[in-house]
């Protein structure tokens, strides 16, 4: 019997352990909170897409595919033809919405997808295990899985990073990242640049400015004056892409 723990002793030890663990857990939280409160973000990327102007040419899709050496099925910015109830149709480009309360972030088991301080959601394809939970969770279908071998990038020494995941890796997930690799060099995102109708605007919520390459506007005013809305906003995802509906067009398709 010596050395044999009684049931009461065991339960007591476990209870004490459990409390200790819970208490210990609060310490790292305290540190994490302090860290986050230091500096404010310098940019918070957003986009405005003018549906009155989009003519469905898909130049944005092609430019994105070329820039990132993507296979045909990868439409990181995808242009939908939407038939509205009045019998007409309009075109709706959909990049990744870089949601504020992104469902894809929450469900990734290995934190392969993460949000930068610039509020862009990136994918670390060196970490992604290809479980595709993020694809199930995304309400906008903005994530794409590399089922096969992606096209080889032209530069064989290209080492992919989350900001510029070229070449894509087989068995991992990729998506639009607002071309942060281009904005780091002061270049407009590929889709913004390629749009012939200048319907896509890239903006910054902190500096409150947006440009489509030609014109530059004050983002908040632009959104308010044009009654810009966000798609499926009621889901609470907090998307960062605003749409300007055509006058008289209903989006209730």
């Amino acid at each position, binding site marked *: *019997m010596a*050395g*044999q*723990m009684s049931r009461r002793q*065991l339960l007591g*030890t*476990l209870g004490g*352990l*459990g*409390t*200790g*663990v*819970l208490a*210990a*857990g*609060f*310490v*790292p*939280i305290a*540190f*994490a909170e302090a860290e*986050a*409160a230091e500096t*404010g*973000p310098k940019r*918070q990327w957003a986009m405005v897409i003018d549906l009155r102007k989009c003519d469905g040419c898909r130049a944005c899709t092609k430019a994105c595919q070329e820039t990132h050496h993507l296979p045909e099925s990868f439409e990181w910015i995808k242009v939908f033809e939407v038939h509205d109830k009045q019998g007409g149709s309009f075109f709706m480009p959909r990049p990744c919405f870089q949601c*504020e*309360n*992104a469902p894809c*972030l*929450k469900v990734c088991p290995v*934190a392969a997808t*993460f*949000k*930068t*301080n610039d*509020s862009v959601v990136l994918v670390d394809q060196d970490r992604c295990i290809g479980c595709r939970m993020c694809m199930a969770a995304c309400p906008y279908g903005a994530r794409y899985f590399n089922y096969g071998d992606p096209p080889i990038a032209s530069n064989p020494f290209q080492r992919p990073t989350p900001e510029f995941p070229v070449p894509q890796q087989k068995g991992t997930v990729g998506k639009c990242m607002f071309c942060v690799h281009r*904005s780091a060099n*002061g*270049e*407009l995102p590929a889709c913004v640049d390629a749009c012939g109708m200048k319907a896509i605007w*890239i903006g*910054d*919520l*902190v*500096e*409150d*400015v947006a*440009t489509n390459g030609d*014109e*530059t*506007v*004050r983002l*908040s*005013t632009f959104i308010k004056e044009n009654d810009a809305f966000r798609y499926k906003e009621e889901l*609470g995802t*907090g998307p960062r892409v605003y749409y300007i509906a055509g006058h008289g067009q209903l989006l209730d398709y």
Partner: protein
Amino acid sequence: MRRIVIALAAVSLAAIALLGPGRSLLPVSTQPARALVIAAPDPAAATHSGHEAVSAPATRPAIVAAADGARVVVTTRSATKVEQGYVIETRIVSPDGKPVNEAIVRFYDLVDFFGPREELIGSARTDGQGNAAIAYLPASLGQSEIVVRFAGQGSLAPSVGTATFEATVAAPPYRSDQPGLLSFTRLVPYAAGAILLAVWGLIAFALFATARGIAVRADLKTAKEDAV
């Protein structure tokens, strides 16, 4: 038995301490909440430009004289209520001194956004005296360079005027619309971890205590021997 429990506890505490913080949980960027920032206006920089000036830091007006273009005089001043920002006024005068009526003017703020760009912040038509004004609350503090473009009218060619001013009042910074409950959920993993520990502990107890008990009590009587 005791040693096993203590070892389990040490390992799991170490694991939680290592895994707890860091980029796990919900990797989102948090916005510190800042209220409207107001700094006191700097009286030393006050000069006038020919308009009736109300208090506040005025600017260095710039006059651009194009050969056949109108003169565009741009001034800025603080709004009546300081927190409303600034008023940017402009006056368009034709080369022979006459104010230009019904002139279309556009106001731009020079920004560095994918290169230097002119951000449209307002547009107006001049009145009989050639005056037009817009209200402007800059998005951030610091130096603001305003460009006013006159679209041209009749024989008058388009022309431009600039002004700079130091913004000490700015619009409230952007706040993300993350639901408040998100921060609460950070506590859940730790509670779950504690429950998990308890469960594994119970399973270990069931297995090892039983095994130990069986081994230890092998020398006692069986039920059958007892009955006999």
